């Protein structure tokens, strides 16, 4: 990357801090609720930049073993399940669906109760 610091993550964190520190106390209740959503959105973007590639590759690696196609992606897996061209009772398919779901929620909402229960 040719860009100077702050990095994209550092910039987003600065914006989030500003919203939390200076804006939250200034807005009425119905906007404070939306502000919390805005902060959550920024946190998703921060986590995706930080972890997204690793979490995606972790799934793709297992996926390629399961369906033995080099270029296999999530859309291919969805198509195979839809057409029942894959044994849906297969344990490695179930394990892959679990991993896929865990890795997505790890970016979208790592505080989600089911995720916390499953990783603890």
């Amino acid at each position, binding site marked *: 990357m040719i860009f100077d610091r702050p990095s994209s993550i550092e910039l987003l964190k600065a914006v989030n801090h500003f919203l939390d520190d200076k804006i939250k106390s200034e807005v009425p209740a119905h906007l404070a609720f939306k502000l919390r959503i*805005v902060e959550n959105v920024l946190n998703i973007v921060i986590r995706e930049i930080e972890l997204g590639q690793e979490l995606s590759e972790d799934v793709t690696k297992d996926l390629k073993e399961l369906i033995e196609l080099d270029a296999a992606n999530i859309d291919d897996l969805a198509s195979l*399940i*839809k057409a029942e061209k894959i044994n849906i009772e297969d344990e490695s398919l179930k394990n892959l669906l679990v991993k896929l779901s865990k890795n997505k929620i790890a970016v*979208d909402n790592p505080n989600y109760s089911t995720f916390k229960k499953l990783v603890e």
Partner: protein
Amino acid sequence: MTEDLGNILKEKLANTSIEGEIVNLEPLTGGASKEIWKFEVNANGKSDRYILRRGSGVEGPLAIKTSDEAKIQKTVRKLGAQVPEIVAVSSLDEELGDAYIMKFVYGESIARKILRDEEYKNTLPKLAFECGQSIAKIHQADINEFPFLPSKTVFEQINDLYQTYVSFNQPSPVFEYTHLWLKKQNFGEINDALVHGDFRLGNIIVDKDGLKSVIDWELAHIGNPLQDLGWICGNSWRFGNTNKVVGGFGDLADLLKGYNSVSNYHVDENMVKAWQVFGTFRWGVICLIQASAHLTGSINSVEKAAIGRRVSETEIDIVDLLFLGGK
């Protein structure tokens, strides 16, 4: 804008017996798809509180008209169900738009407050039973009173939800798996009933004595009544209290005890699981619908954009229910 709305409200209420000065008109945090305002009417030295519920004009594929919500509430209120009293209904072609005005119900609807505040600590242990009773009462309404409501079997609903998911062109291996699984389930042979469609914390008002009122009827329809029991048992509506299966506050046995104390037929715990998975899939597709309103540009809303990233909550809940022994 608030002043204009105040005048429109005043005009609308002039057709009822409610007259006076409209004050303290304020927007409330409501659902993602409806505007909700609170206001007071001052007359003869006394003040009464009301709520305006108004459709945004852009309806989701599952949501009914706001004015039809009012019709349902009027009907079930006569049967003794706990719903707010409707004082005025407005149709889309009126200045107020697709909307209704109801009497304010004192109590709390915000899930996290109900689950955490000291004030409700005596309410929570009996709330699952009371919800069961309340749901059963709604299910006893005569479906012939609601010719305007859509009527769908569960398999029609599964197909509709699946086609909606497909239309967004964002393939999900978990949703494909769920679709195959759901098509093979037995959802119970029970006569069609009025289904609330979104009975959970957030859409009920409680106070320190218990359940006061059932609100937010926009997902109401005619269908298999067990849907309402599975819905409130979805993890999406436990607000973090994942070990309390019913709404984050109660146990399934208590919900069904309450339900069976009113209902003409008996519901067993093992009838609920398929409906839990169905409900979780349904919420996932609703999240997709909400996000798509933003993505297609029909509404620019960070709230709706954000909900697109809640689909993964439903995916992890479904794999937990199907593969990992989740309840």
